[in-house]
């Protein structure tokens, strides 16, 4: 409803404080969205329906709303998504190689529609080794580490290499495979150094709206690494 002053002043009549204040009070109520008592700043009147509703993408696990993107994915549930890393995709264990390969299923692409501060959170749990292969070109067994780095942009090895300072590594498990039944690693990974449970956050100032990708990549100097569990989460706050 539009504002209508309660009093219309007429020449020759007394100007009273009550009439002037009455008009002002009616104006205050009007400016406060018809809230007769209290005022806008002290009365919570915005309901969920008053804010642009977010959209949810169940495939990528992302919610996109007026303030940005939030969401994530993880490895678990009934369909656990165990992954692997191997030196055969990242340089065959040669000491000077700098090749990275993707950490499968951990990449996420989203549409940044306004400049945003982005936070890519990740955690992983892995078991590295035991790699006892004997080819002469490799690093020594104790140095057969697996590095996991976050990257942004389309996946390629150089994008991952650019983030090598963020690399988190886990050593090759220290002891060997049992050659009698039951076959396999003969000591727990947690006791012999080959277990890595780590996490990190990658902050990015995405000041130009664009399709943006975050993901995890692997450089392995070990022939086998089981990536047992993992999770990624994304925050992108528009500014």
């Amino acid at each position, binding site marked *: 409803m539009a504002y*209508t002053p309660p009093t219309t002043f007429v020449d020759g009549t007394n100007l009273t404080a009550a009439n002037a204040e009455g008009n002002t009070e009616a104006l205050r109520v009007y400016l406060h*969205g018809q809230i007769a008592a209290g005022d806008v700043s002290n009365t919570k009147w915005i309901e969920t329906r008053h804010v642009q509703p977010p959209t949810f993408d169940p495939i990528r696990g992302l919610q996109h709303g007026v303030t940005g993107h939030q969401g994530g994915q993880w490895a678990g549930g009934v369909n656990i998504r165990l992954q692997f890393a191997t030196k055969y995709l990242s340089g065959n264990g040669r000491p000077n190689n700098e090749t990275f390969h993707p950490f499968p299923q951990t990449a996420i692409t989203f549409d940044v529609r306004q400049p945003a501060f982005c936070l890519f959170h990740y955690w992983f749990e892995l078991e590295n080794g035991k790699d006892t292969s004997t080819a002469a070109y490799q690093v020594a067994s104790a140095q057969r580490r697996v590095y996991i780095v976050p990257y942004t942009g389309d996946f390629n090895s150089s994008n991952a290499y650019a983030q090598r*300072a963020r690399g988190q590594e886990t050593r090759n498990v220290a002891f060997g495979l049992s050659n009698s039944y039951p076959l396999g690693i003969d000591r727990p990974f947690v006791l012999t150094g080959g277990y890595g449970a780590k*996490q*990190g956050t990658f*902050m990015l100032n995405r000041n130009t709206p664009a399709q943006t990708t975050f993901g995890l990549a692997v450089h392995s100097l070990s022939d086998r690494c089981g990536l047992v569990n993992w999770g990624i989460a994304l925050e992108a706050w528009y500014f």
Partner: protein
Amino acid sequence: MSRLTQPPVLDGDDINAASLNDRFAQFTQSGTLDSFNARDAAFDLPQFKTGAGRPITPEMATTTIGYNLWKHSAYNTYTGQSTGAAPYVVQDGTPATTVLSLGAAGWTINPDEHLLRVYWDLSVRPRWEGTKPWNGGALYFTLPQSGGGTVNVFSGYGCWAFWLQWDITSNGLTNFVNVPSQLDFNTVVTGTRGGNALSACSSTSVVQNALEYGDLIDNGEFTSTPVDTPVGWTSVDGAWFYAPTPSSVTVYGLRVVFSGPFGAHNAGGVNYLVRNDSVASTARLDTQAGTLQAMYMRVK
């Protein structure tokens, strides 16, 4: 929405009915300023401020810390510290300390308005000089040995600790102090050994500095010498937040510091991380690179 154009009352103006009516009549217009057009139309990106008035995240900063040679062809090495020592600061290859600057004006974090969030990671390698030197400290359990006697085995609590310091004085970044609820492990806890109660470890992350276990255990008794495994190159990371109270704080810089070796201690129902001065000279920590990142957000 209309714009009010009525000029203010000035000296010499008549105050009469007409001027008063005009002053109120300017608000009478066909468009309404009510719940519909003030709220039901919803807010979307065009209504949000940019620049300094950013609605959710006013600022963010990130930097590489340490010595960025990821394959460890060279690295920095630090010797264990005793009670009273100032912690080491993460250094580059120079070596010079590496810090995160938050700009000349810093970030002013207000109570009930802002939240400071900090994330970091660092590649490290804990190790020792000599054979089982931790047996000279308080870092082991004594367990029964088959055939009689006992054997010492690393408790699993031995560690290096990493924590955050900030500069809230100026962007000169020469006045770093521990962040709130974080002390420097130099308060004497037992004997002459300094440490922190866990309540004073708000920004602390630790990395174990030895792996030792019994290879052959029979009925709870060791039947062989405990087996040692070097921890090797690994990484440590941390996440910390701060909601200022009761007053604002302006943060100009952040850095990661570290010290060790520490072990567990309990006294009076309080858990502590305490120094192991007697074996500090044999402990080593090699450090490489990582990142230190911060942002602050509005919470209302």
